[in-house]
């Protein structure tokens, strides 16, 4: 599997969307990548770098997941900043 790569969609909302200036990213990952690695890729050298990582939740295919969740081709990932519904 090593060596093969795949793209995932990464959705951004609210404050994060405004900081990044886009509502969606496409990130190419190495096979076997987990959520934690993806987040690190997105955040590094970006306007999100100053955010505390404990504040960010991640969803994959519309379900919250942990940072060791393995990503697969076609996954819809979202960076979920603290929520404020109600």
């Amino acid at each position, binding site marked *: 599997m090593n060596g093969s790569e795949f793209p995932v969609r990464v959705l951004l909302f609210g404050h994060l969307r405004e900081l990044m200036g886009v509502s969606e990213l496409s990130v190419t990952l190495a096979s076997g990548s987990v959520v934690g690695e993806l987040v690190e890729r997105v955040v590094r050298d970006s306007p999100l770098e100053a955010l505390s990582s404990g504040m960010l939740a991640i969803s994959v295919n*519309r379900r*919250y*997941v942990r940072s060791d969740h393995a990503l697969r081709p076609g996954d819809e990932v979202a960076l*979920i*900043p603290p*929520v404020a*519904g109600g």
Partner: protein
Amino acid sequence: MASTERGRSGEETLASSSVVVAAVTDNPLVAADLLERLGTREDGAAVVFEGRVRARSSGRVVVRLHYEAYREMADEVLREIAREALALQPVTQVAVEHRVGTLEAGEVSLVVAAAAPHRDPAMAAVRYVIEQLKTRLPVWKKEEYEDGSATWLDGLPVEQA
């Protein structure tokens, strides 16, 4: 959206509990409509909660609010929370709708309702839905003030699954 019985006028009773509606919407919320639809002939209690945009926040005058949602996921989370409420409480029906888009002060941002044979479970179910959505519904809000400034409100970090 699950089907619902017009229990108050109909002859049938619900065989089991149901989620009447659980969704994010662009349309103005009308709790009264929900209340009319809610309940079976076995229900002695119906509770409705309306969340409204306050004209004041942390001492500042709020002109309007912008609610943004991860819509597809928010619909799923609302359905999940509503089903949990039905499982945790002896209630027959639960409904929840969250408005998104731009709301003026005084407008309704959230409606949560439950019908049950008895009042305590109905109130507990409504409370459960509100408390849960505040911890995990992917919705964000930006307040706009009298002076033209605006800010994204601090929310609650979602605890990972």
